[in-house]
């Protein structure tokens, strides 16, 4: 009964999107800069935007204030040359900033454009997005203070990202072959059933002072059943 051509199969369902509608919603910017609008913005202007609209959450220098994770820091001139952030290799390095991980400048531009400021997303002009992106790159030492980031030079900036070579898709966790990753999972465990060669010693456990860190577990379990929740908060003395 139904026509085989899916475009014809469901008469009256869906309509063509208008060019203006596509323009209003198709805001993504890809690593190859497809989707990036023409325009530019200076680091100086970016600093104004930052201090007016971003610094309250992320800190004046993008180092984050007391609550938010830092955007900037942890990268070096050396990293910019190598395209690999050395600190990521250090097991003792605390935290990872945005610029330590950023492999595509498009990601930063796209995300600020779509989602920031957090409480007023999509309120920035194209110029402001270029400017504040440039300002963050400047804070990371990737572009100079007198730089103006724009669609014309963004591909060159890409070549200075500290971690532009730090990413990989060589794994088996993408379904399908599109990314050309591995086929076999990296972790290959065997299922031993009897007298397995393990030493069942406890190596990690919550310290006693943290027993109440998640509140009173007695209140987080059902009141009947095979067990109860442990009382981790002492009843207040009368």
């Amino acid at each position, binding site marked *: 009964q139904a026509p085989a051509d899916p475009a014809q199969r469901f008469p*009256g*369902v869906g309509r063509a*999107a208008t060019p203006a509608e596509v323009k209003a919603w198709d805001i993504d910017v890809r690593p190859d800069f497809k989707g990036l609008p023409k325009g530019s913005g200076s680091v100086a202007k970016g600093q104004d935007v930052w201090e007016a609209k971003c610094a309250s959450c992320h800190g004046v220098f993008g180092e984050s204030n007391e609550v938010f994770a830092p955007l900037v820091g942890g990268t070096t001139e050396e990293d910019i040359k190598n395209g690999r952030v050395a600190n990521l290799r250090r097991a003792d390095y605390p935290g990872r900033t945005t610029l330590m*991980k950023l492999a595509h400048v498009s990601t930063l531009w796209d995300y600020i454009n779509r989602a920031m400021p957090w409480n007023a997303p999509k309120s920035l002009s194209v110029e402001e997005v270029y400017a504040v992106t440039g300002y963050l790159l400047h804070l990371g030492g990737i572009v100079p203070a007198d730089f103006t980031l724009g669609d014309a030079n963004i591909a060159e900036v890409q070549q200075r990202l500290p971690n532009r070579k730090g990413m990989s898709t060589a794994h088996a*966790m993408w379904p399908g072959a599109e990314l050309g990753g591995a086929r076999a999972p990296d972790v290959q465990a065997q299922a031993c059933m009897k007298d*397995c060669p393990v030493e069942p010693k406890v190596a990690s456990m919550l310290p006693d002072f943290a027993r109440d860190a998640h509140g009173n577990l007695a209140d*987080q379990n059902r009141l009947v059943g095979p*067990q109860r929740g442990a009382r981790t908060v002492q009843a207040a003395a009368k």
Partner: protein
Amino acid sequence: ATAPVALAQKAVGEGEAAILELPEHTRGLGQPVVTDGYGKPSKYEANVQRRQSPGLTQTRQASVSFAPLQSLFGIVTPSGLHFERHHQGWWDIDPSQHRLMVNGMVKTPKVFTMDEIMRLPSQSRFHFIECGANTGMEWGNVAVPTVQYSHGMLSCSEFTGVPLITLLEMAGADLKNGKFLLAEGADGSSMTRTIPMSLVRSGEVLVAYGQNGEMLRPENGYPLRLVVPGVQGVSWVKYLRRIEVGDQPYGSKDEVLHYVDLMPDGTHRQYTSIQECKSVVTTPSGGQVLLDKGFYSISGLAWSGRGKIRHVDVSVDGGRNWRRARLQGPVMDKCLTRFSIDWAWDGKPAIVQSRATDETGYVQPTYRQLREVRGSRSIYHNNAIQSWLVQENGEVRNVQLA
């Protein structure tokens, strides 16, 4: 520490008051129908709630709440207890004003209303959804006390929706060169993720509006979200407003800056989408206290982003010896599977673990096996075997073994 709650039934003499003195409800008239046109759980179930982990996130709108796995049965997660993960807060969107756009490498970019999407042939399937960061706090060491916090970014529902491939075909998508899809949400974060075309072509990916028989809950993307079976929750874009067909991955924040796996050599794996085979014992589990020695039915959940669960083994001696558990049918594709096994607790310390194997033959690793390859600095995709120490006093503790 806590004394075991001694609730074994006492000697009852002539009998218990709960029986001999007929309770009020046996001697009276109860409440009428439709006291609630939409009902709610018993007041005695008030402890069964989704919860935040204190200090885990800096804000409550870019945050997570965990499902109380320790109190759930079977495989269906009640929608009121479904875990939450928002990046820019949740919304209750007027469905009559919601639109879905399909654009990119298509003959005709299209706009669909909810009325139209709901007119198309739909499918209903049971699938788990797990956040890629589930168990993420535990990569390095034990960090949280209960299975709610260690594994509670996990839920399972019957989802109803239209196969995305139907909408792509209606727009005349170039399915040969269009190897990648972008899914984009309508909320402030306008969450974007690159979606594997292989799962779209197989018909698995749904543009879903239904969850457990009713519409999606606002916290879970009402009125429309993507369902990407086997793939981490962040790809299940909520408040779905747009699908773009393209020939390259999109490099969005939450696939190349977050939800990336830090390897020991300092590189990050991007686009790590599949939730690999995993299991956890939920009864008994961390923070619980066994009431007594004697018989217990150890029970838990197993799942795999690569297909069906083939079997689950359970150990009560920290992994030296294992027994095969019963699987509750139906065992479904990329869906939670409930397992259980008998256990008589002798009152001595015991370490309870479960280990799942999926139909591809992949075996859930120990922490040691997982860390040998991935190190311990990652956040995402921790699918290691979970250990629960049952102490002599009956209290169960979250532990990691040497």
